[in-house]
């Protein structure tokens, strides 16, 4: 399951719970991806990705501050064209519906297992 160092994709994590982020970071690194940045809020994310330019963003829906992952997704679609996967524990109809409108590459429900994470990321990159 581990990947070649040469073609390591750079993944950015947007999540307000840092312990979960840490665990996730380990999981991603175990799977052979590079975690190029972590931020808990909308504004910090926008500031960072200008510089970092990740290949994929794992995006929690409910963030610190007044803006949500959905708001961030719209900005990403309009200005950066960076693919993203929603990473959330919310599965209610309303959340799924508004998330769908942002055309994400995937929608992972927490808690997820390593293989689920892997499959979702690989799908997002268009690889199986």
């Amino acid at each position: 399951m581990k990947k070649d160092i040469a073609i390591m994709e750079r993944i950015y994590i947007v999540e307000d719970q840092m312990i979960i982020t840490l665990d996730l970071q380990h999981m991603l690194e175990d799977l052979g991806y590079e975690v190029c940045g972590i931020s808990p809020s909308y504004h910090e994310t926008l500031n960072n990705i200008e510089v970092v330019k990740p290949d994929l963003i794992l995006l929690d829906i409910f963030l610190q501050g007044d803006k949500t992952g959905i708001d961030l997704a719209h900005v990403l679609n309009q200005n950066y064209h960076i693919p993203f996967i929603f990473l959330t524990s919310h599965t209610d109809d309303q959340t799924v519906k508004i998330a769908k409108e942002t055309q994400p590459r995937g929608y992972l429900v927490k808690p997820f297992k390593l293989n689920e994470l892997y499959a979702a990321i690989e799908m997002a990159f268009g690889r199986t």
Partner: protein
Amino acid sequence: MKNSRMRFYLLPLFLMVIYGSATYAFQTNVSLLQKDTAIINDWYTDAFLSMKDDLKKSDDFINKAWKMSIDIAYEKGVSDGYYYTGCVYEQKGAMNVASRYFEKAISLYVQGQFLDNLPDCYRRLGEIYMNQGRNYTALLNFLNGLHVAEDQRDYVNQIELSIQLANYHNRVSKDYDGAISVLNNAEKLANKQIYLSAFGPIYLQYGISYCRQRNYEQARYYVRKAKQEFDVTSSPDNHLKALFVEGEIYEKLLDGEQLFAVLNQAKPLLDSIVNDSLETTYGLLRAKALYQTGDYNAALAACEELNTKLADQKREDDQYLIFALQFKILYALRDFRKADQLFNDYEYTRDSLYTAQYIGQGIEMSENYKLDKFKRQILEQELKLSNSIYQRYGFIAGIAVLLIILGILYFHFREKDKLAHREVIKNSEISVQNEILKQTNRHNELLMREIHHRVKNNLQIINSLLSLQARKTTNREVVEMMKESRSRINSIALIHNKLYQQQSLNKLNIQDYIEQLGVHLLSIYNNNKNVRIHVDTGEVTLDIDIAIPVGLILTELITNSLKYAFVEREDGEIYIHVKHNGENDYELIFKDNGIGIPEAKLNQNNDTLGFRLIHSLTKQLAGIIHYTFGEFSLYNIRFKG
């Protein structure tokens, strides 16, 4: 049933029969009495009608009726008996006897309030008294009769009595104006009621009144009319009276020749009847005529003749007239000595003072009567007025009652309206409160969901912490312990996740939950083996307090099976059943077709954390655990929900 219905119909029928027969009996009784009294009244009427022609027959009828009245105790009949008998005696000319009967009749009529014949009775008695010179008593009777007649609206007797009253004024009280006014009333009434036979007497009295007032034109006019009314053959008395009034007019006009002509006319009529009073009047007029023609001696002789005739009669006014004439004749003859003696004689025989008083009393009585009548009119008017006042008060009271009722109704409906309005307000308040409650409830639900969500998230953080911790060691035993701990935490997190997602906030449908738990544990412990987990819990739902221990027990059992039961096998089956046996009685059956636990290892296992957890949690659920190992390893836990 039928019997009681029969009785139901018979009872009214019976009552009707009793009522009918009673009414019939009563009616026959009444009609019998009515029949008798009708016969009596008929007999009296017959008697009255035949009185002028056949006194004997009349007397028989009266006696028959009178006797029968006494027999059946018919009071009016008895009273009538006296009256009709009085009439018979009057007809016979026995005025004294007649007056006794009339007096008795009057007292009985007044006593029994039988008013039909009462005015007539008063009139007849009054006339008798008048002729007897008992003027005052006569007047009393006339006035009483008039009273009753007016009350009874007995027009005939009202007219007849008025004529008698006028006669009284003309003859006794000399109140000619009074007489004329009484006659005016009588004439009007007679015209109105078309009572023809009254006109003759009325005209006659008019004649007398006007004659005495020296209004000779009017007097002659009325006398002529009276003569026309009184037929010579059918009522010679009255015709004679009219003639005598005419004579009086000529006498007053000092027309002796005309007076003689009238007297000559009267003479044959007078001879055809028997009437002392009229003969006296004739004699007096003749004497006056002789006096006026200068035949004094003949006049004096006539006076003497009259005096002897009147000697046994107590007719004071006539005697006075004769005396006055004699006195004048004697003076004309210049026989002063005889004249003085006559005057003295007359003074002795006649108490002039008494007479004046007597007449005065009559005038007083008449005035009293007028006053009384006037008072009665005032009384009647007052009665009418008070009646109208009562009517007005009644009307006002009616309106007041109506207004009060309307007021009550108005307030009633207004109060009702108010109440309805209040109810509407109350209802809207209630609905607002309901809305608030609903919102609060929704808010609370939201809060509960949020709590479940946060608990789940926190458990996930714990899970991640353990995961991070596990990375720090390579000790296989520690990694395994971390893995088990994480799966235990996850089984609790799953419950909160379920509760957060589903409709109910504290009751969990465990079918989905156990299936998800199985999938999760399979993903952790399935070492590329084909193990299937079959869950069948039906519709069993559990409270969160029960669901968490049950979830943890199952986590241990599934983990145990996945780790140890299918060693050296490629596939396996796990069956999980949860049954609800009774109100508080649940049964969890877990079995797998794995190798089971050998007896030696079982004792060892009892000491592991997994088994300790299973026993402790069963205890927490107040349950009992059984397990057997054979073809299937079977765990049976009965617990209270």
